């Protein structure tokens, strides 16, 4: 499924890049009938992942049960190693669930960046863009006209004027939403833009407000997995 997907996304890049910020269920509903030949692998991926989750869950439960009954028969180190494996599998399930939550239940709003323009993520208060500050690379370098950084100063409309500064790679949490500055390059293979003119007109920046409950679960699960995997292989390394 993943391999088929990589071929399709390579050929129909624009079509699938729309899915990045869309609700996957709505996206599939809209495209399933007309473009089934393009989206079948995503449905297949969902079904496969669901089966993998069920299989992993029951195998881990069975393994834990066996471990509990055999607790006295193996050394403490071996027991720790085996518990590590079981926990890794449980958290693999949560990673897959986190992906499901992110793709199915996230809320995303995109706003063009313009000074004085106000935005309203969800049911929150209005924010308006007070100032846009663009920094370029120095003129003496070959990166002349390339944007080094872009900083937005936003102000909350209300009695208390709260200021928020946001830039690419430095998202800000605002109420339930995380605000990002993202960019979207205009792709034109026939007439590729010169690197020397990679300026604000050719690279479009947007303000993205996203509420993604899956992300926290994903970070937590992956952190646990990496720590436990390292511990498990370190135990094996020490034993050998």
């Amino acid at each position: 499924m993943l391999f088929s997907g990589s071929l399709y996304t390579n050929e129909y890049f624009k079509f699938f890049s729309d899915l990045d910020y869309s609700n996957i269920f709505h996206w599939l509903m809209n495209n399933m009938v007309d473009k089934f030949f393009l989206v079948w692998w995503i449905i297949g991926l969902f079904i496969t992942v669901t089966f993998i989750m069920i299989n992993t869950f029951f195998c881990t439960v069975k393994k834990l049960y066996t471990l509990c009954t055999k607790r006295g028969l193996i050394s403490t180190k071996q027991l720790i190693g085996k518990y590590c494996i079981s926990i890794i599998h449980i958290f693999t399930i949560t990673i897959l669930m986190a992906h499901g939550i992110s793709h199915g239940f996230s809320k995303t709003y995109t706003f063009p960046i313009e000074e004085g323009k106000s935005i309203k993520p969800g049911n929150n208060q209005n924010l308006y863009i007070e100032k846009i500050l663009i920094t370029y690379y120095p003129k003496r370098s070959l990166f002349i006209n390339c944007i080094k950084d872009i900083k937005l100063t936003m102000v909350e409309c209300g009695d208390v004027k709260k200021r928020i500064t946001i830039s690419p790679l430095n998202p800000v949490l605002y109420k339930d939403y995380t605000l990002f500055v993202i960019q979207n390059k205009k792709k034109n293979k026939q007439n590729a833009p010169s690197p020397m003119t990679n300026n604000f007109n050719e690279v479009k920046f947007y303000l993205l407000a996203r509420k993604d409950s899956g992300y926290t679960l994903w970070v937590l699960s992956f952190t646990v997995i990496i720590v436990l995997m390292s511990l498990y292989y370190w135990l094996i390394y020490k034993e050998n």
Partner: protein
Amino acid sequence: MIHSIHSVLFASAILYIISFAAIVTGKEQLSLVTLIIGLITHSVYLLLRIFMSGYPYLQGAFDSVFLTPWTIAVILILLYYRYNNYTIFYATVILIIAVLLSLLYPKGIIPPSPNKSTYLAYIFFMLESLAISLFYISGFYSALYLLQTDSDYFNFSYKCIIYGFLLYSAAQFVGALWCYAGWGIYFKWSPRHLHSALIWVLYINFLHLKYIPDFTNRKKSVYALACSLITFIFYISSYLHEYNIPRIGN
């Protein structure tokens, strides 16, 4: 000036080729020395890439086409000092393939964008290059095992996969954090992300093969070799995907 910078990469490629020729002809010391000098030359080239544009830009050194041969050389030297075995230098053949690919590739730097200049990106590229280098080396030793049936080769390949998998997992984690900070999502429906997921799944599968009693070491070696070839093809395709992107300092 820029052409003379790229000729440093050419010099390191020659040194790697001499290292391979030396080990094949039985001159083990010469192989080690030329590999170390080649690595130093390559490190100089990566450092020069940082300053190539006239402004210090770290991303220049972390282009995986040029970083991967460097990580392969580092791993081979570290493995030599860990196991004190000159046969490791036969794997310089992989290094030569990787460095020849980088010689054929456009050597300029992709114009910078604000969401790429982060330490997360540098950590990601370093971890990923180390991991795929270990996967390539594991493929090489799996092939040797299939040819000579020496269990040492199999064990060596297995260890490379374990360490490679750990590093690859860490790379995916760091890469996703970077993607989230830069693009607001941690998984994109793009060929690059799907290839990464596929490589990860392939190696997870390999690590679970030990639970199948009938799956002999020979079959595992075939699988490991196939995995490293698939990894190689995927990375070549991602390099080709970026081949036509306008660059600065070609």
